[in-house]
C-alpha cells in the first residue's frame, strides 16, 4: 500500500485534535502498522521474575510473531521466533513452562534452549550430512534487553538501545512500578479478547474523562471493597469524593471532572506518554502509597516523577498501571480484535497481608471480570464497530479537549502539562502513531515525536 506522508498527516490533526476513523478498521492500515510500528518498536515481552531458572520460558507476542523468551544456563535471556527453521511449525505450544529443548513435532528437528539446531533426523542419510546446522537455528529476535526486570525486544537491528528508546518518560513509567521494591510477577497472566481496534484500547488508558460514566456502577456504595479492606484505614476513592455519601454524576466540586482533580500529563519521544492525576489531586489513589515515601522512590523518580499518579504507556501497547502495579498489553490480532494481557507485580518483601490485598484488588478491578474493566470492552467494541459504516467513518474521532491550551513545561528531562482533565496524552499517542506510520528513520522519528511548547 502506498500511503503517502501527507495522507497519513491528514488522518491525525494535532492542531484540531481530530482522528480519521479509518485507522480503526482499514485492513491495509493494520498491515502497515505491523510493518512500521510492531516490527520496529521495542515491545514488552515479559518480566525477568517469570523465568528465573534455566530453561524457563514464556511465550510472548511481537506483532503477529510468536516469540519464545527463554532463560539461559548462564543466566541471560534469549528471545527467538517460535518457528522451525525447516518448515515453520511452532516448536513450542505451551504458554509458559520449563523446557530442556524445543522439538518440532513435524519432522523432529530439535533445538536447544539457546535456539541452536541440535538434532535433525536423517542428517547423514537424507541430508548427506550437508545441512549447515549453524545457520538453521531458531531465528533470534534482533535485539533483546531488560530495564529493571522488564524484558523488551525489537525486530529492528537499527533501533536505538532500549533505555534510549524508553527515554525519561518511558523509564518513569516503568520506574513507577520498579521502585516499589523487589518486584515479581504473580503467577497467572489474565488474557482475553475484545472485539476492538488496539488503538481504542490504548487511548482509553489515558482517559480520566470516562470513569464517572463508564464505571459509574462500580462506584456505587458497597460495590468496591473499601472500608475495612484497606489496611491503612483509607478508602479507595477513585472519584475523589466519598461515594458512600451519595455522590452522583454531577461531581461539581471534586472527583474526576471537578476542580480538585489536578492532572499531570507527560509527553515523551517516540510516543510514550503518561496521563492522569498528580499525587496532589483528590482523584489520586495508590492502594499501598507508602512506597512513595522511601528515599529510593524519591531519588529514583525525581521531583516531577514522584508526583505522577496517572497511567503511563510505553508506545505502542504497554500500559504500566499505578493503582495496583500491573502491566497491561493491548496486543493487536486484526483490525477488529485485540488481546488484553494483564501482568500483576508485587514487591517480594511485602507482608503477606499486603501482598494478598494487592493481588485481591488486581483480580477485582481489572481483567475481564474486574468491576471496572468489564464495562470497558462494551464501549470499545461498539466504538470500533461504528468505524466500519461508510457514513459513520466519515465522522472524525475527537481528542480536542484542551487542545491548544496545553502549555508544556520542560524540567528534569520530562515534558509535562499541568491542569485539569484533558486529552493531550491520547492526542500525543495518535500524533506519534502518524509519525511511525510514515516510516521515518530513527533520527527523524525522534525529532517528529519530540514535544514542542504547546499541545
Amino acid at each position, binding site marked *: 500500500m502506498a500511503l503517502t506522508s501527507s495522507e497519513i498527516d491528514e488522518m491525525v490533526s494535532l492542531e484540531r485534535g481530530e482522528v480519521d476513523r479509518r485507522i480503526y478498521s482499514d485492513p491495509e492500515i493494520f498491515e502497515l502498522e505491523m510493518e512500521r510500528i510492531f516490527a520496529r518498536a521495542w515491545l514488552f515481552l515479559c518480566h525477568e521474575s517469570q523465568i528465573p531458572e534455566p530453561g524457563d520460558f514464556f511465550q510472548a507476542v511481537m506483532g503477529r510473531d510468536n516469540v519464545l523468551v527463554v532463560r539461559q544456563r548462564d543466566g541471560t535471556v534469549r528471545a527467538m521466533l517460535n518457528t522451525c527453521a525447516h518448515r515453520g511449525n511452532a516448536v513450542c*505450544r*505451551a*504458554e*509458559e*513452562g*520449563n523446557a530442556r529443548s524445543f522439538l518440532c513435532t513435524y519432522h523432529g528437528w530439535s533445538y536447544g534452549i539457546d535456539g541452536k539446531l541440535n538434532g535433525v533426523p536423517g542428517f547423514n542419510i537424507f541430508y548427506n550430512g550437508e545441512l549447515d546446522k549453524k545457520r538453521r537455528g531458531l531465528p533470534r529476535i534482533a535485539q533483546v534487553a531488560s530495564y529493571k526486570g522488564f524484558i523488551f525486544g525489537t525486530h529492528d537491528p537499527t533501533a536505538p538501545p532500549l533505555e534510549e528508546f524508553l527515554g525519561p518518560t518511558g523509564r518513569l513509567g516503568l520506574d513507577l512500578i520498579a521502585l516499589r521494591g523487589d518486584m515479581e510477577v*504473580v*503467577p*497467572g*497472566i*489474565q*488474557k*482475553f*479478547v*475484545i*472485539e476492538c481496534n488496539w488503538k481504542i484500547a490504548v487511548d482509553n488508558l489515558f482517559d480520566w474523562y470516562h470513569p464517572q*460514566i*463508564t464505571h*459509574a*456502577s*462500580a462506584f*456505587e*456504595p*458497597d*460495590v*468496591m*471493597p473499601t472500608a475495612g479492606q484497606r489496611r491503612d484505614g483509607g478508602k479507595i476513592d477513585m472519584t475523589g469524593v466519598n461515594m458512600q455519601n451519595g455522590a452522583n454524576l454531577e461531581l461539581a466540586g471534586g472527583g474526576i471532572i471537578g476542580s480538585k482533580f489536578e492532572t499531570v500529563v507527560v509527553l515523551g519521544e517516540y510516543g510514550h506518554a503518561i496521563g492522569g492525576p498528580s499525587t496532589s489531586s483528590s482523584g489520586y489513589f495508590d492502594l499501598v502509597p507508602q512506597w512513595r515515601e522511601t528515599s529510593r522512590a524519591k531519588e529514583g523518580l525525581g521531583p516531577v516523577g514522584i508526583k505522577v499518579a496517572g497511567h503511563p504507556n510505553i508506545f505502542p501497547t504497554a500500559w504500566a498501571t499505578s493503582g495496583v502495579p500491573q502491566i497491561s498489553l493491548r496486543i493487536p490480532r486484526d483490525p477488529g480484535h485485540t*488481546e488484553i494481557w*494483564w501482568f*500483576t507485580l508485587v514487591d517480594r518483601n511485602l507482608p503477606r497481608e499486603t501482598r*494478598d490485598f494487592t*493481588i*485481591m484488588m*488486581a*483480580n*477485582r478491578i481489572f*481483567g*475481564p*471480570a474486574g*468491576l471496572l*474493566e*468489564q*464495562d470497558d*470492552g*462494551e*464501549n470499545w*467494541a461498539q466504538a470500533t464497530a461504528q468505524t466500519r459504516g461508510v457514513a459513520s467513518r466519515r465522522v472524525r474521532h475527537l481528542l480536542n479537549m484542551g487542545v491548544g491550551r496545553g502549555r508544556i513545561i520542560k524540567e528534569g528531562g520530562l515534558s509535562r502539562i499541568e491542569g485539569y482533565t484533558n486529552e493531550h496524552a491520547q492526542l500525543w499517542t495518535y500524533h506519534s502513531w502518524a509519525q511511525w506510520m510514515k516510516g521515518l528513520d530513527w533520527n527523524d522519528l525522534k525529532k517528529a515525536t519530540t514535544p514542542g511548547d504547546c499541545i
Partner: protein
Amino acid sequence: MNEQQAISGERAAASREERIEAMLRHYEVERFYYDEAALLDAHRYEEWLGLFADDARYFMPIRRTRTQRELDREFTRPGEMAFFDDTKQLLTGRIIKLRTGRAWAEDPPSRTRHLITNIRVLKDDGRTLEVESNFHVYRTRLNSEETSWIGSRRDVLRRVGGSFQIADRKIFLEQTVLLSRNLSNFF
C-alpha cells in the same frame, strides 16, 4: 485410589438401601443446582446470592496451556491471579452494581442459559458434600454476540435445614485465553 474409583467401589458394595440413599442425595443436589440455574437465568441474583454461605469463596482460576509434564501447574491457585476471587461481600457488590442501571456490560442484559450436568457427589461426611458438576453457560448479547462457556465446578455444599448452602465454589473453564470480552455473568 482416586475419588472416582472410590465411589465406584462403594457403589458396587452398597446395599439396596444405601443405593437408594445415594439416589435421594443425588436427586437433592441435582434439584438444588437446577433451582440455582433457574435463578441465574431469570436474573434473580439476590435470591441466588442467598444460596451462598457468608464465608463462601468463589474462585475461577486462570488456566494455562502447559505440557503434559507440567499439568499440575495448569490452573492458578488461591493467592495467585484469577478471573474471579470473590468473597460473599464482593459477590454482593457485583449484584448491587448490576442493579444500578448503569452497569453497561449488562444493560441491556445479556441472555443466559445455564445447563448443569454430570453431577457427581465426591465426598459426603454428613455435614458437607463435595460435588463436581459440568456446566454449559450460553450467552447472547445485543443482536449478534454469542458466547459459550463450558467447564466444571467443584463445590463444597453444607447441609442447612432441608437444603444446601454453597460454602466454596471453584470454577474451571475450558479456555486459557478467555475468548470473550468480559465475564459479567455468574457460573
